[in-house]
């Protein structure tokens, strides 16, 4: 182990619990797919669950929770900001949404 790493890192038993949790979320996604939601609602629900899954994987599987917090604050908020900007100011993509009558 490196001298800079945290000693708080959990063992394999904990990671098995995280793995089971991720499998359950994936199963819930499949169940919700067949509940008859509209396209927009289903997209929103699936995205929320996917973000939860990704957050858990990032913090535990990728050990970001056990690194110095400056690493998290330097990498993640900026990435989310860039992705939101991409979504919000993508003029051509916004034009595409107007091809269709809202709400879809």
């Amino acid at each position, binding site marked *: *182990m*490196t*001298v*800079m790493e945290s000693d708080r890192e959990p*063992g*394999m038993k904990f*990671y*098995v619990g995280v*793995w089971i949790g*991720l*499998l359950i979320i*994936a*199963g819930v*996604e*499949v169940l919700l*797919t*067949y509940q*008859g939601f509209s*396209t*927009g609602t*289903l*997209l929103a629900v*699936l*995205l929320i*669950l*996917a973000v939860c*899954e*990704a957050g858990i*994987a*990032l913090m535990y*599987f*990728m*050990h970001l929770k056990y*690194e*110095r917090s*400056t*690493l998290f604050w*330097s*990498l993640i908020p*900026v*990435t989310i900001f*860039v*992705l939101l900007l*991409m*979504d919000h100011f*993508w003029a051509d*993509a*916004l034009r*595409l*949404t*107007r*091809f*269709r009558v809202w709400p*879809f």
Partner: protein
Amino acid sequence: MSESEVALGGAGHAAVMEEPAYAVPPKKLTIWLFIISDAVSFGTVLFAYGYLRVGSTNWGTPFKFSSILNGMIMTFVLLTSSLTMLGAVLAAKAGRKSSSVKWMGLTALLGVIFAALHLREWSHMIAEGWRLFQNPTGGSVEFGAAFFSITGLHLLHVTCGVIAIIVVATGFNRGRLTEGHVETTGLYWHFVDLVWMFVFPLMYLMNAAR
């Protein structure tokens, strides 16, 4: 000698050189920066797909439950491979080299199974007439372009990951590579898993025949 000391050129120099940024070894910071840039690349194609999906009036939902079941098995295999990669990292850090190599071998095998399931899905679709710019159901032709591009990009990452794991496992077993290499390879593999957490619901579940 610790990972950080190696990065600084030896224990004797550690006292006169500043600590690496964010208190992580340089190779770990480098893989994090690569992951962030790759996340933005995947974000770009997934946003493009999202707008095409909701902007199209004739998108269609071609995936029968057999395809969704295949996707569920692929999800299970990839999530399990992340767990086995964690086993490899923990074993490497604990100095259990042979155990770490075995975990990495299992991870690579699961990666190959994932790729095989992916290619099976592709071959079924191609047999049905799906192409990059061809939709056999008569709906939007962008579906094939989006599906093959996004899943193909992910499959490319899986393939590179499997090769990287095999190379690192071999090097680690022979003593040429350290536990730091196992950890950085693990970070990349978990990222590939993380991307699938978006690809599966967006590409498969959103296009399931309901």
